[in-house]
């Protein structure tokens, strides 16, 4: 018996590949929807909008996960250290 895939098997593999690429495209599309539709829409909610405006005004990167990535942490630390000195 030959190991070569039959025509229907070839078609099946091709179909699976198409499906995989389609799923990848859908996944990437969902990221696009999130960035350009869902999250901006969320900003219109009364509870979300004001916080987002404050973030935008202060130009904060909310995605940083460690204190050295944040410029504000350095300013906060300098201010507080100098401010509480008179109470120590």
């Amino acid at each position, binding site marked *: 018996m030959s190991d070569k895939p039959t025509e229907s098997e070839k078609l099946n593999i091709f179909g699976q590949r198409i499906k995989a690429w389609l799923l990848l495209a859908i996944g990437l599309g969902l990221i696009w929807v999130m960035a350009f539709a869902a999250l901006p829409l969320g900003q219109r909610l009364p509870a979300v909008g004001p*916080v*987002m405006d404050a973030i935008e*005004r*202060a130009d904060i990167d909310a995605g940083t996960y460690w*204190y050295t990535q944040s410029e504000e942490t350095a*300013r906060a630390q300098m201010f*507080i250290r100098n401010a*509480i000195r008179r109470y120590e």
Partner: protein
Amino acid sequence: MAPVQSPAIPSGATLESSPDVVIDKQKWEWSELYKKEDWWAIWLGFLLIIVGMLIFLPRPPADMAENLAKADAVLQAEDARAPFRTVEWHKANDAKGGLRATNEPYAKTISKWLQKPDRWSSNPAESLYLSEAAAAARRAKAEPAYKEAQEATKAALTRAEAAQALAAAAFFQDAQLNAAAEQNIAEWRQLREKERGSVRAKATVQAYNKIPYHIGLLILTGLFFTIGILFLKIDTTKFWKGFWFLFLIAVVAMIIGNQETMRKYGFGDVLWAIVLGMLISNTVGAPKFVKEALQTEYFIKTGLVLLGAEILFSKIVAIGVPGIFVAWVVTPIVLVATYAFGQRILKMESKTLNITVSADMCVCGVSAAIATASACRAKKEELTIAVGMSMLFTAVMMIALPTFIVSIGMHPVLGGAWIGGTIDSTGAVVAAGAFLGETGMFVAATIKMIQNVMIGVIAFGVAVYWCARVECAPGQMVSKMEIWYRFPKFVLGFIAASIVISIMYSAMGSAGEVMIEHGFIRGLTRDARDWFFALAFASIGLSSNFRELAHHFKGGKPVILYVCGQSLNLILTLTMAYIMFFLVFPAITAGL
């Protein structure tokens, strides 16, 4: 020595045979020093730290010592002169904060090579390339608003100086004049903050082309890791064949994370590196040629050694005793309680998932998850769950918590401490704090920074606890040598980096701030660490599958654990912050 059966490993498997965990052999061999990735993480991490020191430490900003002394003298004199922070006090504070080795030309050159893709709003290409014409157009558009903001700040400063002069004429003895001066100074500071925000960023944008720098960084990073690869029995050619692809995923993840809306919600590159990797591996499949480059543990451990250098222990006193109680007393209590809840009430199947979620929820999100997961050798999927949940809950809390605080009129110091002690990631803490105003933001950011420092202790504690108690049969006593054999050695590098740099930082006084934190840390090792973690998470994504992830999520237990732990965290942090800032140290609160 026979491998140890672990309760954390599926029945029938042994630690050494489990493919998803990295394990040291249960005996010591000197050759481990160059055969194990744990040690290579230490050598490479320290190599980068030493290179950073050699570049930065001999090149301080001009007249650094004199300028620091001058600023300190003004701060001290103004503290003695007036009962409030004067205009001169603020100027001296700004001048001191502006002294940074990272502002020097050589540091800016280094930064150019290590920079991430830029922010963008609708055109992703702008994260890598911005033409001079486009930059000029943006500057021209933003200039009127910037000029207006500058004028407003200038006028506010004039008013503040006039009000202060009146208060000074009365020798700062007139409460009404003092209050008026304080009010005017606060308004000046507020307008100055506004001027420094997004308005200035838009008005000062410069043209850039990051592509050559990213290609250069790809080569440099690849060569850097190849040093260890040569000894780790990994095929160097195959590593390079896949490394460029991994680097590309990391760059794309950074581009997505820097989209303006994603950035505002706090969905950073770490999340997108995992998501992109998983999307590829679970649809079209990760390319075969990338397999040898997926050295997750190697990247993550090297990054963690660099992170150790950023854990500066003297920072825990940044806001005095109240900060220590809020960040260093509540956090371990919540960690232990959440872990115990997960084991005894929720009956979590995996102890490593339990501790990783508990640590990321109560300490500092992504960074704590990375450090704890590596210390207890959690599975990649478990780290993915912890990071994903942390980012989602952080986005919700970043909006809900400050909204609640403002709506009930909570004091900004209390609100700031509450935010700093409970919201996971630094960026979200700063963002939520900003909604409360400058004081709230400063307190929140400082509390979070103090809590960040705690992950050094927690990672070490978890590593020891896992070796001594978890990875052994019930009732089995483990000898000290056995603990040493099993101990994840990279944790030693992580702790050693923290201790060495902390000692240097403290010994250098104010110069430590300029030359260490705002020198080789923020100027070199931090950016390198960022890239290493992005590579690690892209690597995790490319080697994970949805089915395995779903298995760990069974019954929604990680979510229940997170929600219950965070609820306890919210209650305890608020209680402790109130006791410390309002009952025990009200003078500090009044002074902020």
